[in-house]
Structures are given as structure tokens and as C-alpha cells.
């Protein structure tokens, strides 16, 4: 995983509550065996017309004014639904580095953090302010400081967001959690020898 300490980028908003992973990436795109190239499937059914190819001019991500936005501001409870990690892969493939919402579904948040996509939890007022800023001026940009856990709005107001110490450490240092767990081999072995195995799938 690459190190992530700062994000500076313009915002685009999808002010819809409960955006589920089937909207972020529909299941028919899950037949892949790698992570690459999923960006074009992000929000596919909202982004394209019935034919699946013609961009839907009404959908915000097709508006050239918002091209290159790297911070997605969404309605409440973002990422609910399936456990597919294809959701953060698709969002990152589409150029996003952070998603801002009032809350995130548990599995989505875990998946996002493991890939260096930052879930930023803000209060409703900040969320609404970002919605209107994005609408009024598509060039609105924000900055995020991972170490300080702050999102800074164009007016200079810095909003603090929660981030557990471990995820923060991993983001800042580009550490992936697999390495951490592999280093615990002895402890895991000890656990295994002290506890009876529950089932043997090969039996």
C-alpha cells in the first residue's frame, strides 16, 4: 500500500443517503480476477444510459466541471450492502482518494482503509456545507491531513474526523496489515496449541 498523509483535491457530491455497494459497482462487474480497470464500472448504472455506454448527462460524475475530483462527498451511511472490496477498488480506479459522509458501513470502511482510500466521517452540518459548496463552485477544493485527522474547508475551518490509531499508522507508513499479522506467528501458534481445533474441513 502507498503512503497517504495528505490529500488536496476538488470535491464532487452525490447527496444520496445509503449508497450501497451495488450502486458503487454492480455485481455483474465482479467476475474479474484482478483489481485493475474497475474505475470505469464505478456507479455504472447511474453513470450510463440504458445501453450501458452512453454517458448520462444528468449524472454528476459526467459533468466536465467536476472532472478530476478526488474527494467524494456522499449522503449518510455510505457503502452499505455487500462485502465486495471491488467497491473501494472501483472508487480508487475512478480517481477518488477520500470519501466524506456522516457514517460508513463497517465492512466498507475496513475495506477502504486497507486500500488507502480514506473514509472521512463529518457532522451533518459539514456534510451539508460541502454539498452546497460543491454545487455552487465545482472547483471547490479541500485538504485532508491524515496525521492531524483534519479536513480543511475552503474557508479555513478545520474539521476533525475519527481514525483509529492503527489504521492511521498503516496509512501514514504505507504498512499493510498482512505484514503485521505475519509477524505474530509465534503468538498464533501458541493460541493454536492451547486451543482445540473446532472443525477439520478435510475430514
Amino acid at each position, binding site marked *: 500500500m502507498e503512503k497517504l498523509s495528505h490529500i488536496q483535491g476538488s470535491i464532487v457530491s452525490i447527496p444520496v443517503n445509503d449508497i450501497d455497494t451495488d450502486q458503487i459497482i454492480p455485481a*455483474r462487474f*465482479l467476475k474479474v480476477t484482478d483489481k485493475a480497470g474497475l474505475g470505469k464500472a464505478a456507479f455504472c448504472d447511474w453513470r450510463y444510459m440504458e445501453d*450501458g455506454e452512453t454517458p448520462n448527462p444528468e449524472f454528476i460524475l459526467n459533468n466536465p466541471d467536476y472532472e478530476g475530483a478526488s474527494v467524494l462527498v456522499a449522503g449518510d451511511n455510505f457503502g452499505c450492502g455487500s*462485502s465486495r472490496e471491488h467497491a473501494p477498488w472501483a472508487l480508487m480506479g475512478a480517481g477518488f482518494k477520500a470519501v466524506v459522509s456522516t457514517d460508513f*458501513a*463497517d465492512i466498507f470502511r475496513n475495506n477502504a482503509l486497507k486500500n488507502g482510500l480514506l473514509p472521512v466521517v463529518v457532522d451533518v452540518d459539514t456534510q451539508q456545507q460541502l454539498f452546497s459548496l460543491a454545487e455552487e463552485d465545482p472547483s471547490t477544493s479541500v485538504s485532508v491531513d491524515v496525521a492531524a485527522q483534519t479536513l480543511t474547508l475552503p474557508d479555513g475551518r478545520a474539521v476533525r474526523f475519527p481514525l483509529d490509531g492503527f489504521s492511521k499508522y498503516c496509512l501514514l507508513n504505507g504498512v499493510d496489515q*498482512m505484514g503485521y*499479522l505475519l509477524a505474530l506467528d509465534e503468538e498464533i501458534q501458541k493460541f493454536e496449541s492451547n*486451543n482445540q481445533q*473446532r472443525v477439520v474441513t478435510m475430514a
Partner: protein
Amino acid sequence: MRENGKPRTLFEKVWNAHTVREQSNDSPAVLYIDLHLVHEVTSPQAFSMLRERGLAVRRPDQTIGTMDHSTPTTPRNEQGIIPVADVMAAKQLDVFSKNCKDFGIPMYALGDEHQGIVHVIGPEKGLTQPGMTIVCGDSHTSTHGAFGALAFGIGTSEVGHVLATQTLLQNKPKTMAVNVEGRLGDGVTAKDIILAIIAKIGIGGGTGYVFEYRGEAIRSLSMEGRMTVCNMSIEGGARAGMVAPDDTTFEYIQGRKHAPSGADWDGAVARWRQLPTDDGAEFDREITIRADELTPMITYGTNPGMGMPVTAAVPKPEDETDVNKKIALDKALTYMDLAPGQQLLGKAIDVVFIGSCTNSRISDLRLAADFVNGRKVAENVRMMVVPGSQQVKQQAESEGLDEIFRQAGAEWREAGCSMCIAMNGDQLQPGQYAVSTSNRNFEGRQGKGGRTFLASPLTAAASAIAGVVTDPRTMISSSF
């Protein structure tokens, strides 16, 4: 099993027994995983992680694979093989076979007599047992909580972690007691309980919690009913839902392939009896619903929280005070092409889907078959019945249920996820309405532009016969 005399919940007991390293300010807990279920869709990139680093699967003997999501459910050919027409799906299945073979993981391939939906086969094989930790790269892993296991869905990176280390980094969730008091009335099922709970708390209502379902109505459910309830915990935002194990649980497990036997069985049951929440243990939150007040439920919108009694009218956005909710409701009704205040009863439908890890077990199929027996599916309706596993399929066929369905004009399919996720050719056409026994009614979930009403197998079967959304109670004979 009280620790220092402090009463503990079922969840805490299972959590504590699996903590390799305690949670601290610097890091989440490291949790040991007893059973890891893998399938073709969320695992390929995890196996790639292992290959890139030259790692082995630590405990292939605690891992099991099955093919379910992208597999077709169309009939076998003359050679007894289920052909995979979709090139990408075929490749994904090949990659999965190779991964399981290379890493030494036992796996049930498409068409194998034990293959099926991952959450159906775990319990069916006796792999799912009380007090275990179970994970899978699939959010409906919550299903296994019906046995008093701590079972939850994980992402692909985490699948890699478990494959390589048999552990996971987890922050300890909070607990919520979900009490379902009283008894269910006729025609009201486990599915209606969980749809009512989600309608009450909303789809984000359980975020950060593990549910423990309690109360008389839960105790009276069969294991299959409990699985239906736990299955949709995730639709309420909770990653896991649990039911304390009891005699119903033990009876279900005993004699299954991977269940303990002989003296081991007695020892296991003695351990399992220690698991239920101690009197006086505290939950972080508690909610109560009355089973005797429940009616058959149905969803009208585009998330599982948008549910109501089948006899109710679709809510009106103008009655909604919360702005965001009003917008969401407007958007949902537009997608569903429903009018505010409209009754769903009598609404014409195109498809009825009986299947998915929520409702594809033998008791679900028996319920539906009983209902359609001697009746005919309405002409405007395509009814699909998709058993959850090859074992369920065989059982149903030995009871003649397949014939009942065929006689009624329904399709009897091979086992798999099918139209629950629409990855495998089984899907709605744009604009079609389905009454579905699956768990998600998100936009496009059952096919692009398709519209889903989630309901119980009874409501689905009744609607298939009538051709319109129907309250099954109006079609149940008094002997039912």
C-alpha cells in the same frame, strides 16, 4: 463460564475465547478464526496476494471452498455437466479451482453433489457449530450466527489475512439485544420478523453492533428460521447476528458430516451449553418487537429498510419530516414506479424468485411447495425455484417437491445464488417487478432496471399463484 463473576454475553464469550492478542490503544484485537469459507468472487485477488509474497495457506484444514455466486443454475447437459456460457464467469471458476488445488483447500465445484451457496453448505455439513468464529468474503456470513457462532463478512484483503495467518485484526463491536417477544401468527414467518426489525431500526441502525436475537419467538423458530433471521442482520447494518444455542441447535447439528460424534459429542454439547448470555449481562443497546403483532411483510423501496406490512400503503414523501429521508423515498418510488399512498396488494408482478441464502433451504421449499401444490402459477408470472445447495435439491426431489413446482408451472433449477445477485444470467429485465425471497432490493440488484419486493417464501408463493402481490393469509386454508 462467568469470568471473575461478571456476567457475560454470548458474544463476549466467543470473542474472548478467540482473542490471540487483546485490543489496545495502538492496535485492534487479533482474533483467531475457526472456519474460513471461500468462494470464487471475493477470493481471486486474495490468492494473488499470497502468490506475490510466496505465502502458503496456514490452515487449509480450516478452510473450505464452494462455487455459488457466478455459477449458472440452468439444467445439466447430457453428460451431467452444468455448462457455463459466460466466458468471464468460466474463467473466474477456473481460477478458483486452480487456487484451491494449488493451496490444498477442499472445494465443492459447480455440479458437485455437495456444492451450493456458501451459507447453506456450512450448516448443512455440520461445519457451523456453536462458539466458533467463522468468516467469509461475503456479508451474509452473519447467517451462521444462528448457531451461536460469531460469524461475519470480510473484504478480500481480509480474506488474504485469514488465508495466510488464520487471524484477523478487529475492533471489538458493541452488542445489541434484539428481543422478539410473543408468538408468530399463522402465515407469518422468520423472514417477516427480520424484515420488521430492519424496517424499525433502518439499514444503518445496527452499524457497529453485533445483534443477539432473543425472546420466545426466536426460541420457537427452527434452525432454518433462525438462519433466515441472522442472515439479514447485515441489512440492519450489523455485521453479525447471534442466537444462543439450545436443544434445537444441537438436534440440528447431531449426525451431520463434520459434527463431533461419540464422546466428543457429549463434550461439545457440554461446552456449548455454557455459551448463552448469563443472567444480568449487559448489552450496549436493547430493542423489543412483538411477534404476535407482526403480519407478513414486504418491501416497497430500494433498500431493505423500506419495508411494511403487506397490507399497508406505500408511505408518502410529503409525510416525511427528515429532508434526506424524503429525498430517498422520492428517489425510491421513482425507481420502483410506485405512487405515494399506493397499496401494493393487487400490484401485478412479473417474476417470483424463491431462493438465496435467506430462503432456499428445505423448509422454505416445503413451505412454498405446500402452497402451490394443486395450484397454477399465474400466466403473467415466471416463477423460479432455486435450491440453496445440491443437497437441498436432492432432498426436495426425494420428497417430490420438484414435481409439485413443475406441475404448478414453476422452474426448478440447479443450486446457486441465482437471481439474488444476477451475476449468472438469472436476472430481471428492466422495469420488471419481482417478489423475491432474497435479501436485497437495491437498484439493479436483480438485474439492471429490475424492481424487487422482498418477502417471505409464503408471500412469494401466494403472489405467484395470484399474479399480484398477495397477503398469503387470505389464501391459507384453516387447516394450514
